[in-house]
């Protein structure tokens, strides 16, 4: 049965990023499968109101306060009237929230549960347990996830992390990895220089992306292998460290700094290299290494977070997240390439087989099938779940849920449902599964006639 799905997150285009492209790709593939998908996000600058993207994907840019790095102000209840209006006019059955740092997503899930809808949550990142910010985020996560129907994580490491942070039952958490559009990352063997081995690094230059490791490793690699060249793309606070390192070691002829790169241009940079170096210290999934492998690059990466799950061992060379091991692994990779022990030309086809958004959408659909069959909890049962969140927090959460419920009752009275216009749906494609079933029935009918 086709569903009406609302994706809720603070992060969506025009802002570029991993979560944003995940939501877009997943939504458009779900539409291809015959579902109706809308996206609810906050307004970006003058981009407010209702917009349509390719394939009839409808986006609601809700005008709201933005406090920090495109996250909205957590007002808990103020979003409810608009949210309810959108849900009713679009006849939504499932609300799917994305990203644990997005307050819009948490609010949407809370309100959707109050309205008795099915909810689902996708976590895209790993968090610590020790610092104050993480503790606060984890508590908030525990609040909304106490009463979510199902969780999706992008890797097994991410699942472990989320289960621990939100104290969830692991059986309600599924792992569905990200994917790449392999067509956008086609290899081009002629683009790379035949004389030297070029190592490409594309990442935001932050501490958690391992830029310090990179700064320490580059001079040693250049010393060991004088014919190696580096291309580094991306910007961030650690760019200065990188430039200083180049000047102290006078490596300007060996290392090329490109600065920030747009997502469309990433492929053109990647195909110029032979090896992709990914020194990250923490990573939930690491889409970029899949993109690099798809471009036919041999991948050297640190064994952290969800990275070991992403690519098969013949495409990658793992290192511990420390300087010596990273240099050793890179040297091994250079040797392997020089002696032709790695068939990078086959990588693209293999990645194409492994990762596709169509597959991600099909697996997400199975999650939807599962949650729509589950029983809806009564208010008392929900309150019991929230009460278990902590000595003080439990009571506070219960209070929030009760206020939310009362607000809902009031909204049903003030803005009665029959006065809300139902929006027109985009002309639908036939669902693939249904198409095949119908064809099968028709063929059977023909055979019977004969």
């Amino acid at each position, binding site marked *: 049965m086709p569903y009406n799905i609302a994706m809720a997150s603070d992060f969506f285009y025009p802002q570029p990023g991993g979560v944003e492209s995940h939501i877009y790709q997943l939504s458009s593939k779900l539409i291809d499968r015959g579902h109706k998908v809308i996206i609810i996000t906050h307004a970006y600058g003058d981009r407010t109101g209702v917009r349509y993207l390719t394939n009839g994907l409808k986006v609601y840019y809700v*005008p709201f306060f933005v406090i920090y790095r495109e996250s909205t102000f957590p007002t808990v209840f103020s979003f409810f009237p*608009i949210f309810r209006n959108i849900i009713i006019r679009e006849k939504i059955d499932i609300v799917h929230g994305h990203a644990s740092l997005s307050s819009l997503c948490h609010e949407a899930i809370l309100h959707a549960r109050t309205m008795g809808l099915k909810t689902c949550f996708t976590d895209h990142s790993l968090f610590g347990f020790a610092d104050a910010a993480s503790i606060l985020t984890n508590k908030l996560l525990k609040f909304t996830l106490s009463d979510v129907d199902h969780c999706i994580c992008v890797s097994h490491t991410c699942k472990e992390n989320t289960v621990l942070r939100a104290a969830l039952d692991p059986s309600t958490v599924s792992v569905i990895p990200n994917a790449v559009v392999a067509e956008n990352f086609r290899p081009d063997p002629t683009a790379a220089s035949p004389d030297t081995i070029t190592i490409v690094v594309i990442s935001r230059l932050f501490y958690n992306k391992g830029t310090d490791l990179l700064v320490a490793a580059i001079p040693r690699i250049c010393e060991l292998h004088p014919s190696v060249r580096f291309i580094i793309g991306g910007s961030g606070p650690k760019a200065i460290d990188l430039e200083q390192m180049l000047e102290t070691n006078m490596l300007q002829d060996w290392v090329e700094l490109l600065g920030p790169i747009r997502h469309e241009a990433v492929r053109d940079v990647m195909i110029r290299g032979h090896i992709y170096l990914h020194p990250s210290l923490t990573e939930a999934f690491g889409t970029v290494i899949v993109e690099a492998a798809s471009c036919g690059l041999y991948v050297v990466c640190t064994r952290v977070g969800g990275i070991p799950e992403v690519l098969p061992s013949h495409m990658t060379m793992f290192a511990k997240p420390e300087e010596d091991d990273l240099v050793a692994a890179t040297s091994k990779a250079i040797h392997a390439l020089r002696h032709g022990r790695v068939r990078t030309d086959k990588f693209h086809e293999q990645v194409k087989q492994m990762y596709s958004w169509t597959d991600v959408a099909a697996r997400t659909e199975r999650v939807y099938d599962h949650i729509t069959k589950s029983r809806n909890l009564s208010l008392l049962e929900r309150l019991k779940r929230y009460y278990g969140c902590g000595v003080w927090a439990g009571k506070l959460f219960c209070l929030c849920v009760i206020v939310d419920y009362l607000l809902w009752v009031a909204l049903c009275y003030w803005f009665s449902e029959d006065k809300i216009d139902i929006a027109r749906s985009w002309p639908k494609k036939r669902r693939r599964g249904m198409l095949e079933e119908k064809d099968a029935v028709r063929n059977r009918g023909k055979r019977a006639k004969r």
Partner: protein
Amino acid sequence: MYPFTTSTPRLVTRSPSPTTIEYTVTTAPIPPKNLWTRYLLLAWSVVVKALVVGVWIFWGGVKYRDEVVMRGGSLEELWWGFGGVGRWVESTSEDGELGMVGWLVGCARVMEWWWIGAGLVMGGGWAGRRGYTEESLLIMRNLGIQTRTCPSSTFSPLFLLSPLPTLLSPLASFFLTPLLTLLSSLFQKLFPNTPLPGQSSNWSFTSFLGHGGTTRFIPTSQIQDVWIHEGFVGFEVRFFLGVVVKGEEEIVVVFPRTLPGKRVCEAVWRGLRGCLYEKGVRDGVRGIGEGK
């Protein structure tokens, strides 16, 4: 008062000549079918008008009935006034105590004349308020379209002529405008919901008294496109009919105050398209929900 003077927005279609068609969206009340309800409504309007007239007469009384006995306007008067409710018909009783009317007249005499005048203008304005909104779209084939919003007060033309508001407005704006500006900016900060294009979000003195009517004519050559879209209005997402005008950044919303909803918008859109681009005007006239 509310349930008697407004109803949900409804569409009235009129075609005064073969080449014109007028769509009117109004929230005016439909005359009730029940006879008794009609009597009740009639009685209600009679009461309202009688009150207004009563105030006028009372004011005249203040001017000419100097012979009314009164003591000064002190707090005691108030007590006397309430105490004399039973004897309110007589202006004065035999022992010289004041009745209700006497007290009112007495109070009125103490008041300044401009105070009463302003009160009357305000009261008259209130009594003359329509209470409902009416907006229309007139389509003239080969010429263009004209949007119109009805003035909110039946006295609006009078308002423009009379010197009182002109005298009052600098005074009122001196006190009210900073306060209202502050309030509206605060409101905008808290709920930065952008209104639909063409809908004014600022509060002003004119909207306090009631807005005057507006009409706008758009020639056919200026119309680029006509479409229905959705937008955020307050806590809701509403459908609106928009006209894209050449050379203008913002679109013109056709029924900006009533925002009558999808069914009405679609009906008007069909008529508008049919009239501007396709067939004869009469073909454009279709009832709501009759299909494509």
